């Protein structure tokens, strides 16, 4: 990762080099680190063990056609530095672990599940925004059509 380090400002939160799959930067300046599915939880566990004061702003789900990306926006409350972790999930069977027991994220995860169909193992929330008997698919997937809602 030696070339990429010179291109970007230093990574604000400790992360093992072996976990990093790709580094990029948002136009607003935050470093984005792509990690493998399931790594976000392990990284967060390490941060909490190291006594870091972590704030989770939100989780964003983005349909990238071939996969679904989950974007976790973390901030260190001591230095106010942000770090974005991204993990790509298989579109056919998107499953990952909840982080709700480490840092409150149950509603964000529930929302991503409703809107993009991602399963979070261990998330207790059943329903967030959509109606109780909603069976018209996942609205924020790019191939979702209005007609699916009308079919209902």
């Amino acid at each position, binding site marked *: 990762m030696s070339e990429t380090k010179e291109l970007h400002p230093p990574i604000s939160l400790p992360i093992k080099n072996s976990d990093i799959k790709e580094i990029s930067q*948002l*136009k*607003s300046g*935050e470093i984005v680190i792509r990690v493998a599915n399931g790594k976000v939880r392990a990284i967060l566990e390490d941060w909490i063990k190291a006594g870091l*004061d972590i*704030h*989770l*702003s*939100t989780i*964003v789900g*983005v*349909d990238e056609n071939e996969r679904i990306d989950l*974007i976790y*926006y973390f901030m260190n*409350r001591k230095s*106010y530095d*942000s770090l*974005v972790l991204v993990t790509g999930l298989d579109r056919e069977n998107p499953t990952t672990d909840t982080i709700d027991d480490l*840092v*409150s994220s*149950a*509603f*964000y995860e529930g929302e991503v599940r409703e*809107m993009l169909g991602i399963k979070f193992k261990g998330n207790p929330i059943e*329903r*967030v*925004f*959509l*109606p109780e008997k909603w069976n018209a698919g996942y*609205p*924020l997937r790019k191939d979702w059509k209005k007609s699916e809602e009308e079919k209902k």
Partner: protein
Amino acid sequence: MSKLPSKRTEINVGPQHPALKEPETFKVVIEGEKVVEAEPILGHVHRGIEKLAESRDYNKVLYLAERICGICSFAHQANYAKGVEMIAEVEAPPRAQYLRMLVAELERLHSHMLWVGVLAHEIGFDTYYLLVWKDREIIMDMLEDLTGNRVNYGMNKVGGVRQDLSPELKKEFIEKIPLIREKLEEIKTIALEDPTIKARCNNVGIISGELARQTCVTGPTARASGINWDLRRDSPYFAYDEVKFNVPISEKGDVFSKIVLRIEEMFESVNIIEQVLEMIPDGEIFNKVPSRLNGKAVSRIEAPRGENFHYIDFRESKQPYRMRVRAPTYANLASSVKVLIGHHIADVPVIVAANDPCFSCTDRTLVIDKDRGKKKLLTKEQLRLLGIKTYKEGIL
């Protein structure tokens, strides 16, 4: 407590509420008078704004973003505009940045005043509520004079602002500042000295520092629980790094400390407005932005209720590929649910209102008596009166 029965009863608090604008239900299980479980039911007004944004060009999304919230409409619109400007690599001119700060602080003032009034109403102190809302009209008039509107100001463009501050209006605003300070002093004196407010809010709904950190709360809710974090100071945007202000902090985390904290914040907002009016540079208020954009950005703003988060993603297009909005109330929700547990049912409206939620809660209450299987509907007004009556008779 021995007088009260200790049956498990499930109550639905919500989803209509005349005072707090947007609907929201809290399903609360109580034993006797104590809350033992609480669960929020969201989505009554889910409008699919994130999906809608994907089919509109970026200028039209401005007005969509403004309509996310009626109270902090400027915060959402300015945050979106700021994000798109970062993607376009165009900065709004300095005068526009100062004008944005001016409207943002006026909005914080009217939003906090609205909240103090709503909270006073929840505890049955309607004189105070009307007094605060009367003073709020000074701010609303200023916003109307500057932008033309009282609620959705339509102030921002991508690349700047739409309305300029004329020299006459600037003079008028400067003359109004001592009046606002005087009114705020009155509001503060009543809040600190009135026994009703102390009795109903002191030591009620305490969000400990630990709970606040675990549930990732933001804004005044976080600052009242000892989290020293304000985006205006810690990740400055607009021209907040050029003005001086303090960030009030409290360690206690109860409803009373949130009242005091928000009133302190209002004084700081007046200080910022005063500096903005003094320092505002001359010049253009708008820069041109290209019509097709490419890139991703996260834009964050300290809205009156806390961190307002927009994720914006453009891919060589006029329309955003993805737009994600996380309003501050959404971040503070987990804490309000957890903090209800262990409190009396009479405190529910006050605790829910304490986070300044941008949804409604207690218009209609469904009481299900599990043992007898009877259903009873309580209106929000009845629940409010029950709260006032319970405290008056000193049952608790």
